[in-house]
């Protein structure tokens, strides 16, 4: 049996999703057409709307359909602190921890010279301008603890420190609920070098 051209096109189109191969794409297509045509219409509209409207926030580069995203526009947040993260998923992760009330800057990647991704590609020039214009007190570097993430953090540190901005780097160490036995040596080494004196009030 051969599928009709429209069906084949949909199967092919679905394959652009990460982790979706020909078989899964076929299953999704048949499911949508056979059992959930309403859902398919909703999906199609949502996709179109998102692609048309969603763009990067002018200030933090996160995805938003507004010119300035809700986090940046929120006056209750601390506008003197910026947290630099690599991806929008990182913003979500930090937001869910609800431990941070400042603003963000999303790099949409990290410095990766071997792939040809330099400071301009991740918007560092714009970031520097923003920090200086808005009189930011503290920049928190929350790039990943990988070699590229560290290189990015270092580049940013060197860019901001001479201009009198306070820069801090998130701590790395043993995960909550983790066991020292299973933590790799380098993480443990970081945990030890970044140890903190116990506050007498919180023994």
């Amino acid at each position: 049996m051969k599928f009709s051209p429209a069906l084949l096109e949909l199967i092919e189109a679905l394959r652009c999703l990460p982790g979706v191969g020909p078989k899964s794409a076929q299953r999704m297509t048949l499911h949508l057409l056979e059992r959930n045509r309403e859902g398919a219409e909703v999906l199609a509209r949502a996709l179109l709307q998102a692609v048309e409207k969603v763009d990067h926030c002018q200030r933090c580069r996160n995805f938003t359909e507004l010119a300035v995203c809700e986090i940046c526009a929120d006056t209750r947040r601390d506008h003197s602190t910026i947290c630099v993260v690599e991806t929008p998923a990182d913003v979500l992760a930090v937001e869910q921890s609800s431990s941070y009330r400042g603003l963000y800057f999303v790099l949409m990647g990290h410095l990766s010279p071997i792939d040809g991704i330099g400071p301009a590609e991740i918007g560092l020039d714009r970031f520097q301008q923003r920090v200086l214009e808005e009189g930011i007190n503290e920049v928190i570097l929350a790039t990943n603890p990988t070699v590229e993430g560290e290189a990015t953090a270092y580049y940013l540190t060197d860019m901001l420190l001479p201009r009198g901005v306070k820069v801090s780097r998130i701590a790395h160490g043993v995960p909550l609920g983790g066991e020292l036995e299973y933590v790799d040596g380098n993480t443990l080494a970081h945990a030890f070098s970044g140890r903190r004196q116990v506050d007498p009030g919180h023994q």
Partner: protein
Amino acid sequence: MRVSLQPAYLLHSRPYRDSSQLLEVFTAEHGCVSLVGRGVHRRARGGSLRANLQPFRPLLVSFSGRSELQSLNAVESAGAGVQLAGERLFSGLYLNELLLRLLHRHDPHPTLFAGYASALDQLAAAAHSEPVLRAFELQLLDELGYGFDPAEDAHSHQSVREDGWYRYSDGLGLVACAPDAGAPGQRFPGSDLLAIARGEFSGAAAGSAKRLLRMVIAGHLGGRPLHTRDLFRQYRQGGTAGGEGES
């Protein structure tokens, strides 16, 4: 082919599919190989495989497969490795890019592997990174068969004279030239070349060594510049000015 517990360094990785990665690994006995690490991002017992799979760290990798792209089976850490911080991190990335661009896949270079390991150690410890980079560049060229003797005139086969001037001729080596021939950046004083041959990359010879090796390496890169060099230049322009620069 199945290879187990091969000493190796990760040169570069990029995400692939949901939780996998494409890895470029420099191994002791199999040279530079491309591996696909499946499920690298998945977590297992407190830390994912990713925690070990970082550049500049001695690893023991096991991989198998028949095609060009082999599968990573296991990774073990083979020592603490070095912590490259700040500018040294850029220098380390530069070494990785050099290897990635110049090495042929599956071409074993055990001596170069040892040289890379010691270059990383020196980068972490030495006061100046420049001489370490120059020595590694020379070793890399030698290993690849692009080597030349900085202390010998390639035309006359006599040793370089202390007071002479020389220029680099592609594929040949250094040849004598008039003290005012060509652009100033293209010719090198004999005294500097003799210093380079002795492995002295500091002092007056540092600039010549940098220019000479950059010129030779550029000839083997096929017209595409090294990205790490660009990054370093931008870093220099944007950040604080310092004494030493990259390659």
